[in-house]
């Protein structure tokens, strides 16, 4: 499910635009990149729609084996799924434009679901990214420095292992070892029930437990929240760590082969400084672009991780809706996520353009 090496989008990737005459204004890039958001969202949302409707409808999918054909017909007609596809599509677009992503079976608007549970997923993604950064990047640089020696091979195998291990399996193994056998970490949830209650009581809870726990000022709460976050964070973060490791390694090796590194070496710059300063920046810029895609990957992985650890976030909810066969909700969440992904990639690309002076239209 995870992409290792394949990363940045072709048009908008700053790295891909390297050949462009540099020095153009940053604002121009921002504007153009911003305009590209709309077609992106449009395409994704359309894809979701097509995949949901072209071969059938949500009602048949949900209740296919359970109701008689006549009953199915009735429901389909009531929901309007038998109208011409184009009409359904236009209505769908209109709804999305107005911010209406559908309602769940128990009557909640999907946007509301996002707001309630989004914070949890955000928190999880955040921890995962921290793990990924702490593990992936330094190890990647180490692997590049140790290139082709044993250490490098070990690290590369480690990176592949991170990629090859499905998040849910990593999660299960962590649970087994640390919760069941060693008993040092809690096996599920975001915080102990008591703590959760206390955190929820503060004024204007953000929904992000770490922040809220800090706001209560009680160190025991903070510890509790962190204890619950470690395993899910590691499980989800290792996935991305492997990607970062491999990417940093390749880029640093590639950059070290550049003539300007040799030129710096000829002026007496030390090897250590060469890797740290000269190779660092050009090698890391693509990482930023990759982050955009990793966020997408994290969202997918979040669904699996949250299910494994009963982490009450968006992913867990999605999983519950799937079990309940509430496919309208599923579709709505996925469409909403499409919008979010498009926006996130935009922000990430802008940051990358800011850092790399060559990237401007």
């Amino acid at each position: 499910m995870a992409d290792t090496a394949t990363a940045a989008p072709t048009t908008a990737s700053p790295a891909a635009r390297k050949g462009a005459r540099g020095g153009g204004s940053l604002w121009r890039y921002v504007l153009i990149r911003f305009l590209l958001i709309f077609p992106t969202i449009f395409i994704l949302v359309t894809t979701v729609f097509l995949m949901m409707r072209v071969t059938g409808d949500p009602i048949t999918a949900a209740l296919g084996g359970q109701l008689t054909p006549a009953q199915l017909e009735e429901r389909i007609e009531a929901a309007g799924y038998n109208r011409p596809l184009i009409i359904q599509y236009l209505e769908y677009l209109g709804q999305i434009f107005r911010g209406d992503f559908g309602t769940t079976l128990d009557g909640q608007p999907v946007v509301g679901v996002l707001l309630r549970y989004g914070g949890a997923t955000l928190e999880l993604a955040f921890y995962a990214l921290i793990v990924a950064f702490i593990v992936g990047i330094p190890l990647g640089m180490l692997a590049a420095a140790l290139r082709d020696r044993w250490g490098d091979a070990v690290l590369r195998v480690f990176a592949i292992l991170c990629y090859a291990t499905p998040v849910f399996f990593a999660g299960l193994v962590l649970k087994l070892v640390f919760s069941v056998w060693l008993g040092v970490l809690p096996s599920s949830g975001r915080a102990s029930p008591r703590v959760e209650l206390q955190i929820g009581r503060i004024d204007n809870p953000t929904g992000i437990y770490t922040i809220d726990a800090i706001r209560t000022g009680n160190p025991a709460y903070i510890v509790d929240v962190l204890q619950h976050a470690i395993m899910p964070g590691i499980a989800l973060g290792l996935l991305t760590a492997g990607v970062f490791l491999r990417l940093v390694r390749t880029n640093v090796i590639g950059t070290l082969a550049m003539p300007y590194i040799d030129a710096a070496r000829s002026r007496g710059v030390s090897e250590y400084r060469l890797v740290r300063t000269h190779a660092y920046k050009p090698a890391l810029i693509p990482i930023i672009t990759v982050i955009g895609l990793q966020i997408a990957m994290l969202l997918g992985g979040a669904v699996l991780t949250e299910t494994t650890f009963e982490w009450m976030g968006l992913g867990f909810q999605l999983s519950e809706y799937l079990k309940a066969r509430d496919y309208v909700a599923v579709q709505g969440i996925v469409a909403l996520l499409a919008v979010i992904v498009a926006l996130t990639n935009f922000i990430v690309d802008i940051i990358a353009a800011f850092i790399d002076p060559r990237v401007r239209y």
Partner: protein
Amino acid sequence: MSKPSIWTRLPIVHQYRQSVGLQRGMLTAGLVICAVFLLAALLAPIIAPYSYNQLSDGAGDTFTPRQAPSAEHIWGTTIAGYDVFSRVLWGSRTAFLVIVVSVLLSMFLGILLGLVSGYIGGWVDRVLVVIADAVYAFPSLLLAIVSAIIISRGQSDLWGGIFATAISITVVFIPQYFRVIRAETVRIKSEAFVEAAQVMGASTWRVMFRHVFRNATRTLPLVFTLNASEAILTLAGLGFLGFGIEPSAAAEWGYDLNRAIEDVTAGRWWTAVFPGVAIVLVVMGITLVGESLNDLADPRLRTRRRASAATPADAVAATTPAARNEIGETE
């Protein structure tokens, strides 16, 4: 020496002979694992002591569920009473089928689109690129879920499940093949020999297929291995979320892991560890092969440049590092 023997020019064999030291070790390890996987998939009916949905032995005694590894069930039994060892073996068959179907579907379409789009350019190309980027940047699992819902229409027999998974993976993978092949096509398009063909008046098709295509498919093995490994991970993911294939229809590792959550909480490790390790090993094997092939094709990453290229493909690789901007690598 003009044309080296056909034996040494075969793709994997050639790279194997080229590799040195640790890289060779990686390639070997990967190949061995893949071989084991293939054998397991092919010979499952023969090797597995029981069938994937078998709940009782020949004599009619039902298996005791939740049993730790023992003589009759070397890897134990699941919460429902299936034999873990058999399910893992049969699961390799399912995984294999999904890979084959999804790769076949996505490869051809992706390559063709990438080639045509990259070569012809223009607004068609721009549109396709925006579409590909959009789909590509989206969590593949989520798209897979959405399509699996519909395609399976609530049923989950073996072939229904396989096709549901395969098609959803295809949708997600066509953009990948597209991007890689397109990038190579665009790069090759500006090479002198392509222009030479254009100047002499060769038709568009001739230029595309005789000149561009054969040179653009250099990075294909890597994408293929990525495709294959992601197919397995997506299949397992879908299975884990409940979209897998019913145990009565076939064995699937992800589904087994879903059933194993309860076992883990109770401390029973054998239902989770074995299928999980199977997934890890297979994906690792495939990825190792892919990474090695990739390294060998890129002179910057290969240990010790050769003094003379043995085949045309090597020569190309020796002069053009496979720096891929689109995958975030610096040039």
